[in-house]
């Protein structure tokens, strides 16, 4: 019978953590885009300005998730 090693467990935890970070980023980006859509629907003439701010916010949130993903990759591959 195969024994469960600590490194296998670590891989599992890394995968779970990566998924959680993706959930967080998904919620964040969803809220940002929803708010931007609301704003554009109310004031279509301000589309450009709203989009700029939306992209900044999206970049900040997405950067966090991507950093988590890269860190997870490093943890898995480093062993």
């Amino acid at each position, binding site marked *: 019978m*195969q024994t469960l090693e600590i*490194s296998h467990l670590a891989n599992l935890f890394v995968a779970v953590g990566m998924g959680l970070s993706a959930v967080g980023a998904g919620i964040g980006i969803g809220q940002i885009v929803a708010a931007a859509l609301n704003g554009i629907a109310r004031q279509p003439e301000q589309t*450009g300005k709203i989009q*700029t701010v939306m*992209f*900044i916010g999206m*970049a*900040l949130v*997405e*950067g966090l998730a*991507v*950093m988590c*993903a*890269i860190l997870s*990759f490093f943890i*898995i*591959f480093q*062993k």
Partner: protein
Amino acid sequence: MYQTTHPFQLGPYILHHVLDSHEWHLPFLPVIHLPEFISLHGVMIIFCALILVVLFCGFYRHGQRVPTGITNLLEAFVQFIRDEITIPFLGQEDGVQFTPFFCTLFFFILGLNLLGQIPLFATATSNINVTFPLAFITFYLMTVMTLQKRGLKGFFRAIVPSGVPWPILILIVPLEFLGIFIKTVTLMLRLFANMLAGHIVILCLLGLIILFGLWALPALVLAIFFSLLEILIVFLQAYIFVLLSALFIGQMYHPDH
């Protein structure tokens, strides 16, 4: 370590494709061994710079009343950067002055990202040693150029927000000062991580085909979809890098706005 019965190892396979190396694999040709002083990503950077020089010195026609062809394409980007990025964040005077710098940054990053999307070429921006100097230029402009242009007083006015009671200043000023470094680091990591993550995802999906054979063919559709998404991300990341650079530099230059 991994104990798989299959001889194929996905992790090293992906890392070999993503990391920098001194070998260039081209189809139907022997492997090109690059000399010691230059790596594959270095070759990509020089290649991108050559393309930009040829595009802007060779094909870009000055003084066309109605721009056509490649001039029209490039001018749309340049005008977008001037009107949508630099002038709103840096003001009319500084914005026009800084437009060439931001155009260079934008086209350079875009060129490197797009070169990575071509099969058998490497993405230089997925190497943190490439993105750090790009972010460091922004850091230089944020600190040294602000000191030079606005003086020590102007620099502290950017760090110390006005109209805040002094007990809170003790907390805010170190944070703002650290923020300069944090902004640079996030700028560096965002571009690096986004480009690296996109390639790793595509390679993971393609690796499934090698692992599971024909059963993983639907993964090919996903890989194509991700490649298309990657083309969007290529433009978005170049745009966001320039946008955030302009935002950070603008905050240091004009703290009142």
